[in-house]
């Protein structure tokens, strides 16, 4: 057994790793280990496959249902659609106002994302790089916001927005999205700016650049990887936001995608048009799924670097 296993390894990788493998296989009782490994492999592979199926099937079901007639959705949930009918897609896009919700979402998320990155990096830069009284206090004020339940603040916030005339407006929603994205953004970017070398910024200052110019022309370009990570994190968070618009944005014309879909799935007028609803769901899912498949690495890195540091 050893003679068939190890030589190719030695040839391919050369010396050390191959020998180590040979040692582990040789030490102990190879037969017993192989047995344990085999049973475990079958078991663990089984579980892994089951979970993959559990994750993919519901999404697959949704996409398939969007092409079917309502009757076919109920009678044969797993049959492939007879023909590709795009009727439901047209209904969802036009009659069910998905196009408007889509546009609203793009406006809100576009505005908030730019605002979050600009304001977040400005605050983070100052907090990371300058020593001034109150620095720690402001930092913890921002970071503390991460652990508080948003729902508590939403009740008074509703009336604050009402008094300022910001309720049910796109710009009002943008301002609130930015404010609630700041805690994490500031937290993440502060630690990021601390890791950047100081010498470049100092050189720029000695050459006569102002602090503002140093920030925009030297530090911000250097912080690009951090901005991308935190940008992806905020993009997904803001695109998928549900609680804030539900409370603060009750005007039917200003709905964002998530809201519009929920409304569709519960309102009487559309009860019964299941294929239309599924088409709406898929329309809302596709952009992020496509983006995820294309930018898979960046998304994963952005989200995981984001969550815990």
């Amino acid at each position, binding site marked *: 057994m050893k003679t068939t296993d190890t030589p190719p390894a030695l040839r391919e990788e050369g010396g050390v790793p191959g020998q180590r493998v040979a*040692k582990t296989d040789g030490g102990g009782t190879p037969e017993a280990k192989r047995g344990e490994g085999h049973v475990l492999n079958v078991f663990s592979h089984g579980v*892994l496959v089951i979970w993959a199926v559990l*994750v993919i099937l519901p999404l697959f*079901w949704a996409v398939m249902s969007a092409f079917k007639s309502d009757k076919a959705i109920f009678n044969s949930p797993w049959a492939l659609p007879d023909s590709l009918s795009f009727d439901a897609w047209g209904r969802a896009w036009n009659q069910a106002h998905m196009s408007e919700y889509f546009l609203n979402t793009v406006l809100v998320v576009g505005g908030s994302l730019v605002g979050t990155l600009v304001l977040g990096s400005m605050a983070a830069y*100052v907090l990371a790089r300058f020593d001034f009284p109150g620095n720690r206090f402001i930092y913890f004020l921002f970071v503390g916001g991460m652990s508080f339940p948003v729902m508590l603040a*939403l009740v*008074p916030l509703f009336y*604050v927005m009402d008094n300022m005339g910001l309720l049910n407006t796109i710009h009002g929603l943008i301002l609130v999205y930015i*404010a609630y994205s700041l805690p994490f953004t500031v937290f993440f970017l502060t630690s990021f700016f601390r890791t950047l070398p100081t010498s470049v910024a100092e050189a720029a200052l000695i050459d006569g650049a102002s602090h503002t110019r140093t920030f925009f022309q030297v530090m911000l370009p250097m912080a690009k990887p951090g901005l991308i990570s935190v940008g992806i994190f905020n993009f997904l968070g803001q695109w998928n936001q549900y609680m804030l618009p539900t409370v603060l944005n009750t005007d039917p014309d200003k709905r964002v995608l998530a809201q519009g879909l929920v409304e569709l799935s519960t309102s009487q007028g559309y009860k019964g048009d299941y294929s239309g609803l599924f088409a709406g769901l898929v329309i809302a899912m596709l952009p992020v799924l496509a983006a995820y498949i294309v930018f898979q690495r960046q998304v994963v890195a952005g989200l995981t670097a984001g969550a815990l540091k």
Partner: protein
Amino acid sequence: MQHGKYRFIVGFLIAPMALYVIFVVWPFIQSIYYSFTDWTGLSPDFEMVGFDNYTKMFKDDIFWKSLEHSVLLAVLLPLVTLGLALFFAFMLNVGGRRRKDAVISGVRGSGFYKIAYFFPQVLSIAIVAILFQFAFDPAQGMINGSLKAFGFDHDLPNWLGDPKLALWCIMAVLVWCTTGFFVVLFSAGMASIPKDFYEAALLDGATRFTTFFRITLPLLWDTVQSGWVYMGILALGAEGFAVVNIMSVGPGGPDYSTTVLPLYVYQAAFRDGQAGYATTIGVALLLVTLAFAAVVMKLGRRERLEY
């Protein structure tokens, strides 16, 4: 120079601070103040009522039910999600042993699994909730449809309509959409554990169980702990609210079997016109969240392992 520095600091901080204080900090402070008033939210008049709202809350059955459900979510959900994620991540990174020449490696196809498992994480929680609301539909949904296809015809469960099952269905959905994130997160953590540790253990004849409990888990403990807090806060807050508000009958039903604290705050404030009382429940939610984070941090404290 010094003068310019402070002008710069103030100039850069003023806009983010203003937004943050107006829309986040100030409402938080206000909500604690409002919790001592009888404010309805409908009219501008209200009076201080002392601790009336708090005594009312302690006698409120619905509050206790939602508290129970929220605590259940915060404790059970991370347990299941993180447990599953740890198992998957271990299999995907360390589980497939003696393949190729690497000392440790994932099982075959681990790259694909990591991509697939992460899918639900990028979807909006609202979309996920709508999708599963249909999947759970007793007459026409995917789940009972599949059961029928396997030959189960009688007494199919009325998933979200059954008070005994509804909360479990909702938990299953939350597990479904968060597990993949932690798989990827733990994978990143496992990748940073030095290979020599595994090598040494393997030389000593360690099985996969020993490897996991003696090497992987202890070295990953910090990540697991912060994952627990993160997941608990999600379950107590926005995600828990979204799933219950969209999926459950009522919402919060049937028979208050799925009401959670954030949903109850929302309903009291914007449906029942009891803004003052709603903020009282919100304060309770805040305390539960802080207590949860403190308990997890305290219980989970271990000596930090350096490597």
